[in-house]
């Protein structure tokens, strides 16, 4: 195939004779000058006009307060550790935990929106975020929530399993929240019930499996496969590391 540019401007071409030294750049520049004066130049007069950004533009993170289940996946996945779960009052007066984002540290990567299992964290196209002090840059849950969030601002995590591709079922899309579930190594469990307490969706029930040597009941956790969102809270908080996540590939 022919390389057009190198054919038109070869290395040894005698330029002065063809273009009268500098006439062509002057002509090109004058043409653009006339166009910019008669029509309009491309400059956007910023405070009075603004560029239109589509809905999936990654500005600051946004939160849908009522959808959040305070699972803490966004806290775990944030590369700059700028999200924290804090306690706030929700609309009916109960104390719940919701994420608080430090926009000063945020890298605007979109991981919190991508890995949220219920799509409560989203991206928003807000980009004018300047403040006068660093403390004002810490966005509490209510402040994160106040804007118009619509469905285009959600980021969906859709993966394909390698086993599905092998079986010819390559159009099925899943994600790890639907598929991976924790598995118990029963020899290590001490029945402390910590996993039941930290599960955000109450998917763990302690089931009795007999009595131990001291006469106390042996309780082992059982995970409800339909409601679990694979948030890794139980895996991280187990003091004996008895639970590990089973990744289905």
């Amino acid at each position, binding site marked *: 195939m022919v390389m057009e540019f190198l054919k038109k401007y070869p290395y040894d071409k005698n330029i002065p004779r063809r273009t009268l030294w500098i006439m062509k750049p*002057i002509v090109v*520049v004058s043409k653009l*000058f006339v166009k*910019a004066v008669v029509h309009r130049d491309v400059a956007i007069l910023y405070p009075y006009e603004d560029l239109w950004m589509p809905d999936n533009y990654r500005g600051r993170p946004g939160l849908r307060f009522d959808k959040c289940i305070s699972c803490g996946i966004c806290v775990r996945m944030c590369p700059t550790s700028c999200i924290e779960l804090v306690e706030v009052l929700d609309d009916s007066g109960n104390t719940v935990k919701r994420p608080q984002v430090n926009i000063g540290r945020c890298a605007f990567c979109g991981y919190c929106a991508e890995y949220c299992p219920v799509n409560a964290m989203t991206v928003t196209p807000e980009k004018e975020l300047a403040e006068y002090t660093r403390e004002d840059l810490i966005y509490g849950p209510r402040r994160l929530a106040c804007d118009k969030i619509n469905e285009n601002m959600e980021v969906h995590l859709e993966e394909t399993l390698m086993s599905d591709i092998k079986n010819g079922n390559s159009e099925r899309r899943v994600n790890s929240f639907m598929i991976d579930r924790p598995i118990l190594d029963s020899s290590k469990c001490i029945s402390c019930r910590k996993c039941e307490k930290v599960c955000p969706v109450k998917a763990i029930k302690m089931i009795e499996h007999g009595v131990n040597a001291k006469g106390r009941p042996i309780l082992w956790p059982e995970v409800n496969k339909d409601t679990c969102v694979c948030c890794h809270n139980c895996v991280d908080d187990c003091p004996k590391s008895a639970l590990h996540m089973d990744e289905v590939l």
Partner: protein
Amino acid sequence: MVYSSILNWVQFPDVMSNMYYPFNVYNLPYDISYKLWELLGGTIAWLINLLVPGNPVSTWLVCDEVVNMFALIIFMIVIFLVVFIGTLISLWEERKVLGRLMDRRGTMIGMKGFLQCVADGFKTFMKENTMPKKVDKMTYMWTLALVIGTSVLIACMIPLSQRWFVVDYNTGLLIIMALFALAPFFILVSGWGQNNKYSLIGGMRAAELMISYEVPMLIMIATTALMAGSFNIGDIVNAQFDSTWYFIPQIVGFITFFFCATAESERPPFDIAEAETELVEGWQTEYAGMKWGLIMLADYFRGYVACAMVTIMYLGGWLLPWDPLQINTYLPEITFLIKTWFVFFMMIILRGAIARVRPDQILNIGWKVFMPLSVINLAIVLMLKIGGVY
């Protein structure tokens, strides 16, 4: 004499009937300043007379000799203000035109951007006036003052029309060129005196650039004077009115002089003396604040002078050949300024389109291209003169 009302003090006599009138022909700015002093001085004299009737200070303020003296002082201010505002307008024009050809707006705030230039100048004047410790103090201050002083001097000495001049002398064009050509020497000494490698290199580059571009310029000035018959600016303009504008027979000279004028006023593409990306600011590196502001202003003054010289020598000065609206009698100054700003517009387009030329290439072009072209131009004019066409 009995002076009872202000109208006794503020009269408006004919300016040329004054015994001490310093010029030969009617001079408009002098007329304006004469009348301004009549107003101002007359008012002050009347006020003092109200307090102390019949005092000698009041009569002294409005007598013939003293009116001339104060009128001269106001005359200097009027001339400088007009030139200053003309240069500010060319600075504003550069920013807007350069913006549009780069596909953006230029400055936008304040009367379509004009007041921004004023505000920028004001800001530089408010900055701290520093002097680095190790520079040569006398050189540092004096060369700067001389560079700026000569630039403002020649800017004020260019006549805008038959009746707007400072001195009407028979060697007008030569004197402008001589003062214009003084600056490179001061730049060279200033670059040395700043005790900084960048400034030294910048100063040497400026000197070598300007010296090599003065030779074609002088040849072309001599050519124009030959064609018109004298060095007097008024005579050159009138000669162009009688025949054609001189850029038609001297088209080669017009283009060459245009490029030499761009080089002499250190505008891009010939701005190696202050090349930003190579040597931070060249010979202006150590000047900060108000001094740098004045250098920038002097740069634009020299650009204005270069464009004015092009207008006088090639574009017919302040007269239009076809004049249905009688502009030639009423407003020749505006014609002259508009032509100057048009030549500046062409310089701006040149700046936008072309890269900076390397110093050795500049010297090559100056000696090997422009000087032969100016000699060819001289030959063409000689043949036209001998053939009796002009």
